């Protein structure tokens, strides 16, 4: 997770994007357990398993101040009976009991001014705000404590295109102002990701199958799954008018009993004999990581798109 960058995490529903986000934000609650792995933040190494066993070990300052999670559907988390400014105070007081309402207000006002958003919003109730504004407000509130890392889980999915654009512009401005030092942006919407992210990781069935610079992934996909996802993107362009996208056949596997070898092989158009038996090798090509047998056999080749032109 490089300093000052936005990393995207993409994949189909049920591939584990949100679960990974939750584990990183240290809110893995039963029945979800972290069974292994460590996390290093600013030189401080955290063993994820001890955290999972002993939830008291995760002190509150950690959540929200070091890693802040903006969960899915966060805009519905604003209490209908509280004004936005009360929520701001609640969030800040949870971390530092001595914070007064006036201090919380000052901080929120400053932050809103910085982002050139209307300050009067603080005096509103949730029902007085539009969906896009609510989503931008929870984003601002979740970063009031200047977290090192913000994990944004599907922040734009419920919004229409215009509100999406406003939220994205705000996030980019926040990163530029160094309010937070990095963002993990989780969504299945690739066009949105191509707009905000510097790096992109594609997840399939609980594993990261490709990881690299967004530009490289979009123009030069090396994993068949990435290519299939990209071909399913419908941009309003002349190409979309004439192409016929096949989509990915079949459905995502049951993770209780994942396929052997490469987890994508039953649905992959380029599957070979070894794909079904052996785990694919992880190839590192410069800055670009890909876990695929096809990619090993065909170096420096972009996966051809499965699209027929009508």
């Amino acid at each position, binding site marked *: 997770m490089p300093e000052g960058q*936005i990393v995207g995490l993409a994949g*189909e*529903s049920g591939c584990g994007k949100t679960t990974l986000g939750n584990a990183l934000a240290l809110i893995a609650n039963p029945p979800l357990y972290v069974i292994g792995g460590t996390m290093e933040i600013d030189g401080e190494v955290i063993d994820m398993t001890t955290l999972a066993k002993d939830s008291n070990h995760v002190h509150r300052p950690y959540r929200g101040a070091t890693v802040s999670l903006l969960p899915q559907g966060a805009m519905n988390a604003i209490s209908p009976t509280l004004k936005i400014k009360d929520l701001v105070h609640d969030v800040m007081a949870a971390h530092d009991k001595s914070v007064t309402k006036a201090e919380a207000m000052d901080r929120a006002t400053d932050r809103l001014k910085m982002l050139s958003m209307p300050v009067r919003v603080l005096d509103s109730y949730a029902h007085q705000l539009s*969906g896009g504004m609510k989503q931008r407000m929870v984003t601002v509130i979740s970063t009031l404590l200047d977290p090192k890392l913000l994990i944004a889980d599907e922040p734009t999915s419920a919004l*229409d*295109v*215009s509100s*999406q*654009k406003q939220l*994205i512009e705000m996030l980019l401005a926040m990163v530029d102002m160094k309010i937070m030092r990095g963002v993990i942006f989780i969504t*299945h*919407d*690739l*066009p*949105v990701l*191509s*707009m*905000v*992210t*510097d790096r992109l990781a594609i997840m399939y069935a609980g594993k990261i199958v490709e990881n690299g610079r*967004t*530009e490289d992934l*979009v*123009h030069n996909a090396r994993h068949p799954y990435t290519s*299939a*996802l*990209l071909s*399913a*993107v*419908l*941009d*309003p*362009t*002349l190409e*979309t*008018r004439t192409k*016929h*996208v*096949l*989509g*990915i056949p079949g*459905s*995502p596997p049951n993770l209780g009993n994942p396929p052997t070898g490469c987890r994508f092989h039953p649905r992959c158009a380029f599957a070979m004999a070894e794909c079904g038996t052996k785990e694919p090798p992880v190839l590192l090509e410069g800055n670009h990581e890909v876990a695929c047998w096809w990619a090993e056999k065909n170096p420096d080749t972009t996966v051809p798109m499965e699209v027929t032109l009508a």
Partner: protein
Amino acid sequence: MTDTKADTPATGTGLVPVLSATHVTKQFKVAGGHITAVDDVSVDFHAGKVLAVVGESGSGKSTLARMLLRLMPVTSGTISYMGKDVTNIKGGELRSYWRDVQAVFQDPFSSFNQFFTVGATLKRRMAAKQGDETLDELIERCLSYVGLKPGDAISKYPHQLSGGQRQRVMIARALMMNPKVLLADEATSMLDASLRVSALNVLQDLRSRLGLTVLFITHDIGQACYLADEVVVMENGLVVERGTTDAVIFDPQNAYTKRLLADVPDLKGSLKKRP
């Protein structure tokens, strides 16, 4: 392509539109007055065409669909089906209208009863037989239209299906009534990109194979671009632009349409500019 406000091209052939709304207005009472959700909208649906209605949240797309479905009364204006006024029909006439005009809604997760298998869900739908076909044959035929294997799907419970499969079952359910018109209200918005494409392909296929007329409501211009023959753009209850898909998307005349198109993130065009 200069006159995009002109009537849709197919009207020129003198065909009676399958379904049409003429000067339809809907007002809702709110404290201190009323709001006009749909304002003097006229739209025609021609047989075997896909018409997309696009617009932001709150532009009146769904209200228009509900009025066309006769689920909501109109404040003024008329809705006609096959040249016949259906704005105020009741009883048996309304039930037969509901048979011909079917709908698929947004949420494939809440439209199922969790305790019934797909087969049972589809059987409950049909009290009456149609022609010589038995109910089982009809179910099989409709499931195969939407690309599901009947033998597989019939015994499954909703939780065993993916979102895309559920939405396809909902389309099959609508098709069992042998409808003339299918209204899809954000039917693919909740699906992942790859599943969305397969649901859109089903609709495209049905249009060309069964000559189904489809009203496709969406806020995603990319989907409209992939599927639709004609596009209507709505803003605050008003139709601001209409025409063939090519005309509206590639040569928009209205400022709102232009802004809407500019806001759509484009996979390759909007790659983040790096210093």
